[in-house]
């Protein structure tokens, strides 16, 4: 399920470089783990997303420059991996697992509860207050703890629809 809300036309977003000072040093340490600079691409993209919440075209170009790649190559990699956001998302990013094992344990009701409680109109959309984006994901790898939900970096097990309002309140 891709995130479609809030598309920002390429090149018009506010740009601030990520790789300066300590962050650049940290990237240097990561590059040293691999025989090629290119191998630090996934970690570098994670660093951008951590710092900015998403990865803009301008930041992709920055990563390309730092690692000696082309912006087109970096974009090709970003678009392959579903966890990299190519558009801004809500303050909290909610990912509900709905693959078969969770599906038969009621995951669709959990998704519905998140949409209703947050006010996000549809999957991939952000709530009107900009606070929460809800998506369905394929298998989170915790099928025995259906339904697992990933809110930002917090992995929450055994979520049922009745627990959703409390969770939404927790992630303000």
């Amino acid at each position: 399920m891709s995130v479609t809300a809030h598309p920002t036309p390429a090149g018009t977003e506010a740009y601030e470089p990520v790789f300066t000072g300590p962050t650049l040093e940290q990237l240097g340490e990561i590059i040293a783990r691999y025989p090629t600079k290119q191998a630090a691409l996934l970690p570098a993209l994670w660093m951008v997303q951590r710092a900015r919440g998403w990865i803009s075209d301008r930041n992709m170009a920055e990563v390309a420059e730092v690692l000696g790649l082309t912006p087109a190559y970096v974009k090709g990699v970003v678009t392959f991996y579903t966890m990299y956001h190519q558009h801004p998302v809500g303050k909290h990013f909610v990912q509900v697992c709905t693959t078969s094992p969770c599906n038969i344990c009621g995951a669709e009701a959990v998704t519905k509860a998140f949409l209703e409680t947050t006010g996000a109109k549809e999957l991939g959309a952000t709530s009107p207050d900009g606070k929460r984006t809800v998506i369905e994901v394929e298998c989170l790898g915790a099928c025995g703890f259906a339904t697992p939900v990933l809110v930002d970096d917090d992995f929450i097990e055994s979520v049922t629809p009745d627990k959703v309002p409390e969770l939404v309140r927790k992630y303000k």
Partner: protein
Amino acid sequence: MGFPHKPHARETVVLSKYFGDADARTYKGWVKRGGYEMLAQALTMEPAKLIDVVKESGLRGRGGAGFPTGLKWSFMPKEKKKPHYLCVNADESEPGTFKDREIMRWTPHALLEGSAIAAHAIQAEVVYIYIRGEFTEPWTFMDRALAEASAAKVFGPIKIYLHRGAGAYICGEETALMNSIEGKRGNPRIKPPFPAAAGVFGMPTTINNVETLAAVPHILKQGAAWYKGMSLSSPKSTGTKLFSVCGHVQKAGNYEVTMGFPLKDLLYELCGGMRPGRTLKACIPGGSSVPILNREETESCLLDYEGVVEKGSMLGSGGVIVFDDSTDMVYQIMRLARFYAHESCAQCTQCREGTAWTTKILERILAGQGKMADLDLLLDLSENMTGKTICVLSDSCAAPVVSGIKRFKNEFEDYIAGRRRPVIMA
């Protein structure tokens, strides 16, 4: 100890002994439990000797393919002319499987120790542990354990690094994983060359699953004969295996049993059976990529590589998905097909088009707009998706479809003939 349940008396607890024991996550706690003794010993051993011990134990890859681990290690060049690498596949994403997650979040040092021993055996100086991006909790514990163990200098000359994935099931395929480490799109590579000849960064590489490596220190400690002796049915399947059971059972979770254990006992005794008033309808015994078994096949199945094949499926990763009589099989098979359509890397036509059209046809049937000819069309599509692509993702989509139509054809026909109320798609 045990997690999320206390071990059942019929479990053979080796890998899962410290699940639920937070102290075992720490370096000190792990050493107190005898951890890293085997690594210290292994580092003084000849690599060839280590490979022999693992070969002798009969250990087979726990990621899904079941390839003999010692044999895989022996494919690495004996005379080292280039850097060697070990990649650890911790990209556990196969629906129904959640065992590696438990190993990493409860016993991270077990994986680190097994990885370092394997690295020594294949003469690798660098280990990359590729952890799927969604596994934030296992990552935290692995990262902490790695920092502690590195500070204690237990790995000798071997360097271990964690590498985070970013949401792509296909990166669990070994060559896709290597491309992903190299900073590329996770497209599987054409084989040959095989990883032992040209793997990550074009260098000789071995790639092993988390559970496989976690078993290695135990094999060294208690001996190959001990491991080989743990076999209830086929002598070709040895040791213990973690089975992740999920879906319609009373007590879902990970269960560790000796190879050859009856699936029926696992479901009805260890997992407490079906929910009240429900009966078993179907079971996927080895993760979503393997054929679906019906009730009779499930209840007579022995859990080892050969036993599951005999029933028409595969042991795979040991992810057991249980469906009771309330399940709409057509809907669940569509849901699995949708998973593969979403996860296809799209480089092979058969897979890119096949997974997408399979999903569309199944959705059409569910919507009450199917034709009887659609079943033959699905089988024809599946035939063209099997054994014709670079990796087996396409085959994995075909497996539940073909086995599902074979065993639950009446459910498909009910939708097509209008005997069942159509499903409104979300």
